[in-house]
């Protein structure tokens, strides 16, 4: 299988401080990878380097075989690298249906049209209805987002990413801030992600990591200290060293 997403020797420092040191990751279609690490490990910087919000000092980001290192965030999205946000970024005055229709129309190159409406685009309507059904949002499809529950907003966040038909999906703490009672629905949504999609999840919650990921990468002080199966991660001496004492704090903060 050919890699859909590759990060090669990515380096970034601010001032003299190396925040990302020689990070390399390869992902294939269908991969379910969790990226974890103690606070200050450089996860946010890594995400920003991958999405194109920061420029690396050296190294490469490859997407489906193309070098996208020199591209900004927006063209990377168009090439199939889509992210969700840790704190939901939705349009408060729009409905879930409008969100998804906008995303589908954007993906299919129709947001430039100054006339017409998505209601008269059967394919958009069908795809939106499908996404709403998959994520269980159909009963609130036409409510304003500012009026729906936070758990539902998080589901919409995932649906919005899926509407862009990504090759690689970057999930930034998809369950952050969701009340305990709603986490099963988020997990169900994650379990139902398309099987050919490569997913990289940044997460604090270890329970979620163990249930979701087939592979775990641990970032500490800007470098990868572990890359392997979830079963092995807790046994790894360096991981224990990096986490010991800080893990409990992380969980209460998250």
């Amino acid at each position, binding site marked *: 299988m050919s890699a859909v997403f590759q990060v090669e020797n990515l380096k970034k420092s601010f001032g003299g401080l190396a925040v990302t040191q020689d990070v390399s990751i390869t992902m294939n279609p269908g991969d379910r990878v969790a990226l974890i690490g103690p606070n200050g490990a450089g996860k946010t910087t890594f995400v920003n380097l991958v999405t194109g919000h920061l420029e690396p000092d050296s190294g490469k980001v490859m997407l489906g075989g193309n070098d996208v290192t020199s591209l900004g*965030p927006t063209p990377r999205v168009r090439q199939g690298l889509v992210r969700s*946000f840790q704190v939901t*970024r939705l349009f*408060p*005055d729009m409905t879930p249906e409008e969100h998804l229709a906008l995303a589908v129309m954007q993906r299919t190159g129709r*947001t430039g*049209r*100054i006339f017409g409406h998505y*209601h008269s685009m059967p394919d958009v309507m069908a795809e939106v209805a499908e996404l*709403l059904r998959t994520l269980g949002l159909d009963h609130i499809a036409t409510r304003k987002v500012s009026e729906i529950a936070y758990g539902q907003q998080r589901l919409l966040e995932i649906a919005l990413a899926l509407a862009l038909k990504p090759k690689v999906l970057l999930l930034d703490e998809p369950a952050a801030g969701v009340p305990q009672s709603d986490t099963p629905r988020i997990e169900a949504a994650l379990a139902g992600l398309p099987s050919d999609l490569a997913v990289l999840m940044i997460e604090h919650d270890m329970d979620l990591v163990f249930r979701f990921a087939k592979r775990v990468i641990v970032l500490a002080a800007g470098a990868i200290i572990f890359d392997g199966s979830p079963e092995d991660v807790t046994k790894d001496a360096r991981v224990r060293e990096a986490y010991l004492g800080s893990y409990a704090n992380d969980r209460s903060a998250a």
Partner: protein
Amino acid sequence: MAAIENTSAAKPAATRPNWLVRDLVGLAVILAVAAIGYFLFPNNLALLTRILGVALLVLSIDLVTGFCGVATLGHAALFGAGAYASGIAAVHFGITDPLLMVVVGAIGGALAGIVSGAVILRGHGLAQLVLSIAVVHLFHEAANKASAYTGGSDGLSGISPDPIFGMFAFDLWGRTAYGFAVALVAIAFVVLRLITRSPFGMLCRGIKEDPIRIRAMGASVQGTLLKMYVISGAVAGVGGALNAISTQVVGLDSLSFTLSAEALVMLVLGGTGSLYGALIGTVSFMWFEDFVSAANPFHWLTIVGALLIAVVLFAPRGLYGSAQTLLDRFRGDGK
């Protein structure tokens, strides 16, 4: 607002006539008000026509400010560009057909929209406001300097448009001009309703609410806003052309900061983000202005100032927005 209230995502066909009917009602109301104005104030049609010209400017500001969230104090540059473009076309190039003059005005406004959009969209917040102010001053000074074409501070006079379709000559009482103005505003209203509801319009609303999310969806924020600036420029340019045709002169005041600021005030008074708000704001402001400033221009300033402060403090959504909120509340109680 342009929110589409349908009950079911699965049955779009059943909900579609809903907004169609509402828009037709809106259009009917506009035409009815225009007709009432015609019969109530037959001697004041020039004022009513001027109001309609400025209404197009205010609508065009609403496109960028209300629908896209770009704050601008320099939008008269687009209006004035349209006015001068059609005026110069008439005086210097013999294009005196009013419909052609409107087209030339729209093109002039759209070009000015590209130029000023390209400058203004480089900044955010304060920088954006200052850039918009600088742009309108720059246009003003340029028009003043190019007096061979624009007539400079004396204004561009000698615009004498042909009869519309060769049949309706512009009369002394301004009846033709008023009818022409009403037709232009009605057309602009319908076109803008369609645009604001289109996929492009949705994208603009998205940019207003969260540009970062729009970028994360793979859409270009700058490109979209610039496109809206061009559309906005065309609308403002039509307003400017209408002004040039109906008054038969173009003055430097059509490119002024004062007009830009006043038009923004009208928009906010009526309510941003809704085409009705823009129209209501323009009509109430200009009519009231004519009424009070005839007595004493300084009283007028005091009253407008106080009104503005009151709107900011007590009715931040403007006349139309506040009325809508009240109406929603009553409906909510009724249920």
